């Protein structure tokens, strides 16, 4: 296959993921509104917000790093997404999946945050370093159970290739990691709560205490880039979880497979929405302590279980 | 309560003792004795809470009247200590050593009435008014309307109505004839 077709397919795949991620964000805002007893914004509101922010007439920059912050963030989102095979067996949605892509993806999940930290720091607003400090510390803490769970999976399937991991889970619902290695899935799902930054772990954005945290100085197109990335990155994370733990999306017909992908990612996301709508926010030290306690132990138990039994 | 009042009368130059309600007393004190009276009230009579410190501009008598409102959680009683000071170059003894938070009231009084409190912390900093250059605005010889017309831009066509007459004319035309008024008891 020529590289041109490959790039074309990747562009299609990225566009689909971004649109799905943003729509999911809109639906979730609507759901939260219904929980509050409100009518809520329309589900296409994130798209209008992005158009509006791109349509601003002026944009204030604070220096080179300020420009690069959103670019790094978007690069992190794209990098995460482009190395995950979205639909098993599909040529268009296989992206740039290759041997050992799991490690690359794990790296890219962290990369965007670091780039963002540099850009936000140059904004000079006191709230952005606070947000960045909280974000990075929470990130390093939820990375521990997630990494343990990924190591357990790597030991279980003897591979670091996501496509192989998905392939090993085909052939019935009982082949999913969810049933073959439930402890690893529990640890990973708890760390996903932190990753999605919904309510108990929303200390990074925390609208009431450090107004929206790191991106507070970002304006106009900078903010629009970040919002686009939020859609893409959110979709990428969900697709990664679907591939690793819930059997991936596989069907001979690509549209049916897409529908499976949409349904599965929606349900995976609903886990963190349910928790988010029901619980109040943790403080930073509580959240970090939480991640380093039970999910870490469960993750270690899952490795021991896979390696010795 | 009676003991406190007799004690005050015997030991200090206190005048005008008034009982307004069961839980509200007013006394007048000389400027020199304010610290000792307040110390007595705070430490012996258990009036431990300074609710507010406020000033009234008595321009006709060329005086400022300061009111220290104390409250006692034991007696459940308010106790107001009034002091009359001269209006020209007004100066008062600071009580920030008795109640720490009094410095904020004193700073406000310095700004709004121009009453100086020597030794009070941060008394010269601006409280609400930033960059104020006129005379202290709460003094009664300060004409706010004139200052407002001079400084801010008036929008022409502004009109005012007497609320009572306007409401009668607009909404309650038959209000005077209504049974509520005709009942004569109100």
């Amino acid at each position, binding site marked *: 296959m020529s590289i041109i077709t490959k790039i074309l397919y990747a562009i299609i795949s990225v566009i689909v993921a971004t649109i799905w991620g943003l729509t999911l964000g809109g639906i979730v805002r609507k759901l939260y509104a219904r929980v509050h007893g*409100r009518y809520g914004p329309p589900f296409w509101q994130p798209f*209008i917000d992005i158009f*509006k922010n791109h349509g601003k*007439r002026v944009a204030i920059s604070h220096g080179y790093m300020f420009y690069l912050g959103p670019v790094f963030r978007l690069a992190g989102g794209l990098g995460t997404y482009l190395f995950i095979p979205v639909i098993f067996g599909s040529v268009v949605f296989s992206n740039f999946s290759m041997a050992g892509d799991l490690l690359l993806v794990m790296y890219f999940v962290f990369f965007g945050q670091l780039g963002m930290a540099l850009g936000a720091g140059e904004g000079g607003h006191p709230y952005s370093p606070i947000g960045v400090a909280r974000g990075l510390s929470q990130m390093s803490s939820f990375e521990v159970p997630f990494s343990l769970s990924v190591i357990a999976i790597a030991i279980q399937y003897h591979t670091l290739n996501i496509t192989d991991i998905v392939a090993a889970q085909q052939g019935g619902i009982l082949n999913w990691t969810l049933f073959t290695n439930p402890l690893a899935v529990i640890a990973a799902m708890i760390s996903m709560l932190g990753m999605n930054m919904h309510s108990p772990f929303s200390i990074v954005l925390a609208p009431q205490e450090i*107004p929206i945290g790191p991106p507070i100085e970002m304006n106009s197109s900078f903010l629009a880039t970040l919002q686009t990335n939020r859609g893409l990155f959110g979709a990428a994370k969900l697709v990664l979880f679907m591939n690793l733990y819930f059997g991936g999306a596989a069907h001979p017909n690509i549209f049916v497979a897409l529908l499976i992908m949409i349904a599965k990612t929606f349900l995976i996301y609903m886990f963190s929405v349910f928790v988010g709508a029901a619980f109040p926010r943790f403080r930073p030290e509580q959240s970090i302590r939480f991640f380093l306690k039970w999910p870490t132990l469960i993750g270690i138990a899952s490795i021991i279980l896979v390696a010795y039994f | 309560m009676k003991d406190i009042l007799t004690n005050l009368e015997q030991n200090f130059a206190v005048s005008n003792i008034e009982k307004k309600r069961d839980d509200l007393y007013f006394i007048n004190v000389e400027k020199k004795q304010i610290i000792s009276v307040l110390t007595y009230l705070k430490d012996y009579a258990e009036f431990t809470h300074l609710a507010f410190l406020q000033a009234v501009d008595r321009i006709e008598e060329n005086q400022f009247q300061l009111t220290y409102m104390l409250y006692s959680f034991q007696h459940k009683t308010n106790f107001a200590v009034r002091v009359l000071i001269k209006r020209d170059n007004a100066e008062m003894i600071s009580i920030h050593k008795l109640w720490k938070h009094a410095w904020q009231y004193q700073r406000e009084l310095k700004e709004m009435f121009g009453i100086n409190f020597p030794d009070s912390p941060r008394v010269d900093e601006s409280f609400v008014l930033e960059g104020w250059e006129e005379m202290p605005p709460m003094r009664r010889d300060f004409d706010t309307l004139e200052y*407002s017309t001079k400084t801010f831009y008036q929008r022409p066509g502004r009109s005012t109505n007497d609320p009572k007459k306007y409401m009668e004319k607009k909404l309650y035309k038959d209000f005077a004839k209504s049974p509520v008024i005709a009942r004569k008891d109100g």
Partner: protein
Amino acid sequence: MNKKDIKNIEKEMKLANEGLTEKERTLFSDARPSKVDLQNKYFEKFFNWARSQSLWFLGYGTGCGAIELRPLMTSRFDIFRYGIAPRPSPRQSSVFIIGGYASIKTIKRIVRSYEQMQGPKFVIALGSCTINGGMYYDSYYTINRLDHYIPVDIYVAGCMPRPEALIAGFQKLKKMIIAGKCDGMNKYAENFDWYKKNQKKIIKDWNMPDYNW
């Protein structure tokens, strides 16, 4: 015109920033705001629609009217369904709601926040006080006409207007934005000297740059 003249004109066009100390002056920009030309007609129409559907207002309550903003966000009035949302940072918001009386101390912050907002930006003036001073018309420390200090797009009269009135104001603002009538940002840039003169007349301790980028 020779080079010297051009240099002189450029020097005159720069802002003096007299309120700042010599050391601080190097930290702030001294450029004047400039008028931004409109884009392609069809782009502009599309963006005007997007702007009207996504109004982010600055969560800065000035005066008593700020109390009317809280019920808007909760389930009783739920302003989110119109695409309106509060935003904590002036950098990201496009609507500034002046809630009622504005004292001089507040107007300093209002000007500062307004200038930091990224255009196109809209101002909703809430309550009688912003129109002609309202019941504070003779007060020594509250301004009478807001439109002498920042450009205003919509007035919502009343003392206080109910949240419904504010929502009606938002709907009117939407119509005006779609029609392309709200151009307060360019108006501010064109009449910059007049606005600055009025602001400096009342703000005596001007310790910020002349234009807050």
